[in-house]
């Protein structure tokens, strides 16, 4: 009697072809988004403390750039790190990322420190979701100083 495994071994190709991709580094960490969001927070503080028009214009431009980076890092986490099975542990995952990305847009348009603070809180919730799904153990290189 010929087993199915023997048939599959016979049929299996000897040559592999690559649907070639770059290597995914596998590092996904909410800290990247948090650092850029902290930049936004500090910029809003500095903006409020300075009346110089040129300084304020520059602050707004830099806040815009940093906020774009927050969105990028959040999107990478959302699309690449989190998988459908993580919804069991974090049922509000999609809503959380939607809220966080909306909040980034708000920070872009605002110079209110409360908006920047709310963004930090939402990123901390993303961080908690990342930890709850084993992100810390799975994606951070061992030995990193805390």
């Amino acid at each position, binding site marked *: 009697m010929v087993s199915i495994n023997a048939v599959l071994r016979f049929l299996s190709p000897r040559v592999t072809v*690559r649907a*070639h991709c770059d*290597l995914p580094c596998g590092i996904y960490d909410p800290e990247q988004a948090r650092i850029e969001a902290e930049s936004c927070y500090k910029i809003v503080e500095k903006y409020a403390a300075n009346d110089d028009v040129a300084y304020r214009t520059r602050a707004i431009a830099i806040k815009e750039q940093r906020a774009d980076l927050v969105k990028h890092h959040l999107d990478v986490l959302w699309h690449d790190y989190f998988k459908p099975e993580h919804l069991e542990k974090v049922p509000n995952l999609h809503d959380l990322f939607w809220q966080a990305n909306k909040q980034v847009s708000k920070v872009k348009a605002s110079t209110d420190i409360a908006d920047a603070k709310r963004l930090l809180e939402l990123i901390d919730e993303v961080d908690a979701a990342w930890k709850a799904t084993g992100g810390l153990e799975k994606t951070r290189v061992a030995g990193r100083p805390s």
Partner: protein
Amino acid sequence: MSRSLGARLRGPWRVAVIEGSMAPGILPGDWLIVNPLAVRWPARGAVVVFREPLGDTLAIKRVAARAGDQVQFAGGYLTLGPDEAWLEADADEKAAAAVDSGPPIDSQRFGPVGADGLVARVLFRYWPARRIGRISRRRKP
């Protein structure tokens, strides 16, 4: 220079796919029947096995443009030479990430590929059983 008939007859006639740049149509682990007798680039939309110009990797991609076509490249346009093809991945970065692959590598990275790089045209998937079928010629999804 393209391979001799003898070399082409030796194959490969069957290949196994690794990595995810052709997702969702062709996935890592698919086994494919290919035609190694092809000597010219098939029509746009066909899937081919070829040797990448950088590093000689045996790879699979879809023909997006052929000789004489203009393609966008490096912020400008490039007109393909008489035996060249422009090969593209089906997957974008997100679709590749969904099958745990990094950003796809295609002609945007290694440029046009000459006919001497053509190894075979992909015809048919024969494994997994639930996805057996012809690999159709089509535009990038």
